[in-house]
């Protein structure tokens, strides 16, 4: 009993001593920080830059991966019917669903489906002069919607009856087109202008379309410039009105229905097609973009590794600058742990301040960079900063900063020798 009490007493005293030692270490660390305000400000600025490099590069990585997924998410459709292989980057070469309007009508007839519509993709020739055409992607859809976020003009909408009639006759309907903004700039085309769209150079003069607006909606989805035209018009241009081919047929589950269950039911009904709920479709599309995924992950990895390397260099420098003070502390009997603690505590403070500055600056810089990106390549929100990216940036600054500073202080304790005191 007495031994146990004595042991507890010793433990309590030991804890008190450690606490007192820690408070002393923190006091010295703060004094050192205050002593050299310019060095402190520069170190905080450096950590903020590290955090910014991590958050912005990681945001770019996340954006690169997410930008393709956005097309599907923005389409806001519950169910996607397709047939492998689907490669949006090779739009036009894969339109495996024949009789798309029939499939669409069948789906709409189901009680558990509220609406359905086909989407087709083709590689086309496009230009304001039928003698000077460029190759680009065209997406055929029944109508545009508010998600297009038009930069100029507006969209189009085709009446169902008009669409059916056009499909039967193999003729276009309104012959309207929403151009990608970069394409529009290059062609110097704006709403009201005429462009030619065809699947061959020879047939281009036959198909005149009126530009009704500009939007990067499908460009973001495909990862390359793409313009949107009414589906019957695209099929007419491609000469596939008869076979009525499309890349996807999308559908919305009826209110109260579980999209996953409806997708499973439809999958049973159409064994020749792949039917996926929206989330599954996003995953399937992402899997088919290993390059994009690899690029995104590489950027995130580079950001973290680069940030750690920069932080290591920074705190090695901070410790080295205090070599003489550390040597003096060592000479008067302070342990290497206490020396490491004084540098580590400085690392924590500098890391926290730099982390906060870096995180506060991230949204503003990401917004600015996104504006530049829109101007240059037309992609919206290329940099995306989810909460996880902020957390990684802050953890890197505070935790890695502290650990690295502790290690730097510990190492400094070794090289902070009496020789560094001069006399």
């Amino acid at each position, binding site marked *: 009993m007495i031994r146990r009490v004595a042991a507890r007493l010793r433990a309590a005293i030991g804890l*008190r*001593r*450690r606490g*007192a*030692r820690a*408070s*002393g*270490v923190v*006091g*010295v660390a703060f*004094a*050192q920080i*205050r*002593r*050299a305000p310019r060095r402190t400000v520069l170190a905080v600025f450096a950590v903020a830059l590290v955090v910014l490099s991590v958050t912005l590069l990681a945001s770019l990585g996340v954006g690169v991966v997410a930008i393709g997924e956005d097309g599907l998410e923005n389409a806001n459709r519950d169910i996607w019917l397709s047939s492998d292989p689907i490669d949006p980057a090779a739009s036009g070469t894969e339109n495996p669903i024949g009789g798309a309007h029939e499939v669409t009508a069948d789906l709409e007839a189901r009680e558990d489906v509220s609406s359905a519509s086909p989407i087709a993709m083709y590689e086309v020739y496009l230009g304001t002069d039928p003698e000077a055409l460029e190759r680009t992607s065209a997406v055929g859809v029944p109508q545009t919607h508010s998600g297009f976020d038009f930069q100029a003009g507006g969209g189009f909408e085709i009446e169902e009856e008009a669409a059916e009639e056009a499909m039967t006759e193999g003729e276009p309907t309104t012959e309207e087109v929403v151009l990608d903004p970069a394409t529009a700039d290059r062609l110097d085309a704006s709403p009201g202008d005429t462009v030619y769209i065809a699947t061959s150079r020879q047939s281009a003069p036959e198909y005149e379309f009126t530009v009704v607006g500009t939007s990067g909606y499908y460009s973001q989805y495909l990862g390359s410039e793409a313009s949107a035209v009414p589906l019957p018009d695209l099929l007419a241009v491609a000469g596939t009105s008869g076979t009525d081919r499309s890349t996807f047929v999308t559908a919305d589950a009826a209110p109260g229905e579980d999209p996953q269950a409806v997708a499973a039911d439809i999958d049973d009904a159409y064994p020749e097609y792949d039917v996926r709920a929206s989330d599954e479709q996003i995953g399937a599309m992402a899997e088919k973009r290993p390059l994009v995924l690899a690029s995104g992950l590489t950027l995130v990895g580079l950001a973290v590794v680069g940030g750690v390397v920069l932080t290591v260099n920074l705190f090695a420098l901070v410790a080295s600058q205090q070599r*003489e*003070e550390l*040597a*003096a*502390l*060592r*000479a*008067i*009997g*302070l*342990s*290497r742990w*206490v020396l490491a603690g004084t540098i580590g505590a400085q690392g924590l403070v500098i890391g926290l301040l730099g982390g906060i500055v870096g995180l506060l600056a991230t949204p503003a810089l990401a917004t600015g960079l996104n504006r530049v990106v829109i101007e240059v390549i037309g992609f919206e929100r290329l940099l995306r900063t989810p909460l996880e990216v902020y957390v990684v940036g802050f953890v890197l600054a505070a935790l890695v900063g502290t650990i690295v500073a502790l290690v730097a202080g510990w190492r400094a304790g070794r090289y902070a*020798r*009496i020789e560094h*005191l*001069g*006399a």
Partner: protein
Amino acid sequence: MRIPNRSLRRSSSADTEATVDDETGPAVRLENVRHEYGSTTGRFRSRSEQAVTALRDVSVDVKRGEVLGLEGPSGSGKSTILHAIAGLLVPTDGTVSVLGTDLTELSDRGRTRTRRRHVGIVFQRFHLLQSLSARANVALPLVQVGLPKSARRERATTLLSEVGLEDRVTHLPSELSGGERQRVAIARALSTDPDILVADEPTGELDTDTGADVLELLTDVGRDRAVIVASHDAATLAVADRVVTLRDGAVIEGER
């Protein structure tokens, strides 16, 4: 003017620090100490680097209450002896005993502990932390001991009063004169109530009058300690009970 503070003493393991407080033997004993700088087998040492012999078979004892002077020109090995006594370097050969414990047998951690508890150091250039007040500088060694802040402040204030700086407690080193800085350094060296005090050219940065004051203080505080003062200044060495003269790392007069 010893200000004992028993709370600073703690039990310790025999293998990590000096534990034998032999009242009868010398406080410090150097036996056949030889030291070469650059004699370590560092991986990246230049081939052209030549080992420099700093000490050659030095044997010296220092008793409690004795003030030993180390005299000699620059490069004669005075500072190397002080650093060996403080455990700041391990000589290439020979033994350095502090209170009966051979420092050369201890780990770096053990030597640091021994230095912290038994050896106070005073440097020529003071080496105070410029970011800390006089009181905080004096209290620094007590941080490692784990004394609460209030106790650290109290002891540091008392020590500063003892060295005549009661009105300079909160001043930064940059706000103090050279003599005052050295007094703060002496107070810092005394903060853990050491048995041994080593001073390397303690008056080297001071004018004659200030130097005399500092020497008086050193001899006063060293009354019941072993004090080793290295200097090439005759006035400084005049306060010593015994002077050992060094030339090229060897004792030429005053050994043992």
